[in-house]
């Protein structure tokens, strides 16, 4: 009997600790779009036959992507205020930006200051990656060889930096460069998750390429995950 009690207590104790840590400092939520989703424009890729040939059906613009139940994709959510004075280690794992089918994948993503961005050209045609940051130096890299990779780093935080391709003007991507690892981009279900946030109060900002930004105050403690939701209206 004593042994079982011990085991039970230990298990309970471990569970409690584990649950506390797994929920410690997490903010999650969904971003929704209110109203009728605008119809996405069709992109004409006739100018470059290689691009047109890569798609069997028509390609839609990724400017506003609304999924089921109004889920708004490609919204960049990050901690805007509350982390002043803290420094974070720069991760060495790169974030990949792929040019495939004459489109940037992912369309919206986040990266930390100093974290490498791995840019790949998976298409058999010439692309160029033209980054237009305001806080860093502008760059324009040609990638003529299919499969070639180029690494790029950002030295200053900026939300958001636009990437475009000069050969194919419909191609663009947006990257949010922040100095901390607390950011997330909504997927097709419109959900985002920011983990391991130390306890405290913060200002969260959600950015969409067409509908602008929204902010929200959240207070995070180690007890339970916070939820935050944003709604954009067209």
């Amino acid at each position, binding site marked *: 009997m004593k042994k079982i009690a011990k085991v039970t207590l230990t298990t309970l104790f471990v569970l409690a600790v584990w649950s506390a840590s797994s929920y410690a400092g997490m903010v999650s939520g969904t971003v929704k779009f209110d109203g009728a989703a605008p119809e996405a424009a069709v992109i004409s890729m006739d100018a470059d036959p290689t691009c047109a040939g890569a798609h069997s059906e028509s390609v839609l613009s990724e400017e506003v992507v609304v999924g089921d139940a109004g889920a708004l994709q490609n919204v960049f959510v990050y901690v805007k205020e509350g982390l002043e004075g803290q420094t974070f280690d720069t991760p060495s794992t790169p974030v990949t930006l792929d040019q495939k089918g004459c489109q940037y994948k992912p369309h919206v993503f986040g990266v930390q200051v100093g974290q490498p961005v791995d840019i790949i050209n998976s298409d058999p045609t*010439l692309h160029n990656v033209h980054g237009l940051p305001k806080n860093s130096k*502008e760059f324009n890299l040609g990638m003529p*060889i*299919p499969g070639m990779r180029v690494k790029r780093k950002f030295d200053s935080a900026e939300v958001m930096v636009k990437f475009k391709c000069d050969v194919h003007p419909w191609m663009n991507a947006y990257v949010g460069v922040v100095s901390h690892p607390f950011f997330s981009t909504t997927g097709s279900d419109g959900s985002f998750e920011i983990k391991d946030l130390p306890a405290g109060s913060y200002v969260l900002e959600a950015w969409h390429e067409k509908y602008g930004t929204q902010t929200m105050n959240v207070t995070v403690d180690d007890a339970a995950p916070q939820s935050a939701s944003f709604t954009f209206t067209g």
Partner: protein
Amino acid sequence: MPGKSPSLYDLKKTTVWFAISSLVLLISLVAMVLEDSTREWKHWQKEFVTYSREKAEGELQKARKAVDQKKLAALEAQLVEAHMSANEQKSKVRELEKETAALAIKITQTTMRYQNEKQFQDSDRYFLEEHRLHHEDEQAAEFAKRMEERAPVIDSLKRDLEGLQAEDDARKESINEITQKARELTRQIQQLTESITRLESTVKKLSPNVATAILNAPMLDFMKPTLQIQQIVLENLYDDYFFKKSNKVDRCTTCHLGIDQTGFEDAPKPFQTHPRLELFLSANSPHPAETFGCTTCHGGSGQSVSFTTAAHTPQSDEQAAEWKKDYGWREMTHAISKMLPLSYTEASCTKCHGGVVDVPQAPKLAEGRRLARTYGCAGCHKIEGFEKQWKVGPSLEHVQSKLEPDWIIRWLMNPKEFRASTKMPRIFHLENTSDVKSAEKSDASIAGIAAYLMKNSDPIALGSLPTKGNPEAGEALVKEVGCLGCHTAAGVDANNFGPELTGLGSKVTPEWLYAWLKDPKHYSSETRMPNMRLSNEEAAHITAYLLEDRNEKFESIRLPIVKSEVVDGLAMMFLKGRLRYDDAQAKLNAMSAQERLEFIGEKTIVHQGCFGCHTIHGFEDTKPIGTELTDEGSKDVHKLDFGLIHLDHTRQAWFYQKLKEPRIFDRGKEKVYHEKLRMPDFGFNDDQAERLTTFLLSLQKEDIPLEMSKQLDLREQEIERGRYLVAKFNCQGCHTLDGQEGKVRKVFDDAGNAPPLLTGEGKKVDGGWLYDFLEKPVTIRPWLSYRMPTFEFDEESLTHIVRYFENLSEVPISYKDDTPKPTAENIEAGKKLFKAFQCIKCHKSNPEPGLSASFLAPDLVMTKSRLRPDWVVEWLMDPQALQEGTMMPTFFYDGQSPMPEILGGDALRQSEAIRDYLWLFNAEEAHGAAQPQVPQAG
């Protein structure tokens, strides 16, 4: 005892008076000394000391807080320990010091003996040589012996001395060893508190104390006062005192104490730091204070040390009242040396910076000059340096083929009625000619001018339009073919260099406009409007569009009724100037009514000086009618006619008023019609008048010695010649060039559709090619709708423009033939790289119409004739460095090539290979490259 006489003075009373007068004299003498020693500038210097001290005290507080107290405390504790340990060896130290003292005495004695012996030796040498010379061998031998005997003594003394010194050094060494730790720690502490110590001593120096009080006391301040007049004596700059030039001595820094130091930006005036220290006053600026002083730029009386007599000029009436209250300021009537108000300081720049189109770093002056060029001041007023200025108004040599007399009349009555943005000023019906009689005379004169111009101009053959023209197409063309590079039209106002294209339907005929658009120089050989190479249909469309816009209000202006007796009166007035009354009357009677009208028109043109802005037949050599403005900035204020208007008696007030309301100085005066002021009203707003006043104030007579003025070297001269042409033809209306953005670029959403950027053009394109291009433009970027116009430059201008670009990019004159001489390897490699980088994707020779500009790039077939080979290599290596924001991507990221197997992956060699290949690239190759490729796997 003398008896009492009424005229005898009472001694007691006299003594009283003596006492009183002595006291009063003492007081008055003290008052005199104080009055003499109380100087305005001393007050300011004391204030500055106080301010600096307070500032230092603030910094001291901050420094004290910034010091790491813990570290300091630790060091000090260690120091105490070190002292204690040193103290334990105190007796040893004392002994060593005693020995050192004794050694010092010995050293001194030895040194003295040594030097004495050396002296004797030298003296003996002299005598020895003298005796030898005179062949006195006996004496010589004696001296030689003495020298020989003395030599070893000297040597031994020297050795002794060295020995003693070595001992001394050893002892000192020992002492040092003992105290070394303490000293080291003290040094560290000092380092830590260095700024505090420094600031403390600064504060102490600036604090009042007895010594400075005595040194600055009245009667005692001749010795070494701390409050002193500061002056800069300028060697090469002079004050002109009429037939005598004396070196400028600027004492401004006596009160303006912080002006050349950083750190006083927030200080109260007069201690405030001068703005833009890197440009003015600091030792490594182009205008260091020791070389240029203050009054060269600001004017004023540099030798004065009082606020009022230095002739500070207030910026406004409010400031004048403030100064009167605070400083007892009054205006100095010195016309020569009054300071320029701060808002007009840039007027002094041209004293040294002559011979340039725009003085650098002087935007107000540059704008003033630009206005003077645009509105054609030099057309009526002779200004040295502006003689070659082009005529700013259109030529009237063939005006009868363009305009109707009625239009001319309505136009002359008030040009702004037709078009508010016109630059033509109003000449008639202004303030001083607004009474009924003058108005009648003006109307008659206007009618006369119209009649005369009709008669005096030669007709021009105008063709007829081939088709009717579609206004909508015309509007699109106006927006797209490049008219907006000079004109405001179709609702877009990027430029106002040429006239605004509104109301043309009320002004010109379709035939005239069509002929003008097809070839402007056919109508006016001197026009600056270029030929846009419009096709017949295009010209017809544009004509149709522009003539749609009518100004009904203008058309409905009632033409004034001209009475014949007024015409006769005017004609008589002109005739009586030369002839006696009877002869004049006879001549008048001999003229028909029309002739009379034309006569007064001609005379009015002479009177009003229309030929100053417009080329008019028969008036090519007539002298302009206005006052010469060459030295206007130095003109005596007494020579300016202020009339009966109450104005500040200064040049700038007069100029400003004259520019805003030229006829105002006739107010209240009794004058006959033709004696009234003639300057037309340009309708300048306050800003424009201020800038033009700056320009007028800059026209000064003062001649600065050559070594002090800015001499343009050859390169700068050629750039200025180019800038002149750029200003004349408004290149910057379309193109970004020479530090200014092309004005029309903001109209474009897609920057790729805008006229190309010309920054760095000189080292980019071949000079010969540029010459040909400017003479006869060809299409380089076929997707652009804007056309580079044909300006029909003459040879001299073309050369100047090419040299201008080359000099801007600092391209040296080189006779080397730099055509690439490629090897077969390079050509092969270049071809491979060309294919791999898929250059042809954007650099299409025959692009499909309708593709957006960001797809497209110039045809590479032109490379060998157009571009410079070195530039092509530079470009390929890093396009963003040469033209930021270009669509051309970098293939050699970080100096690495994506094709490491070609030419060893060396980015430079690969770029050269591509360049070499391009020099062989022709239409055939281009066609071959454009075929769909099978891409290689990388």
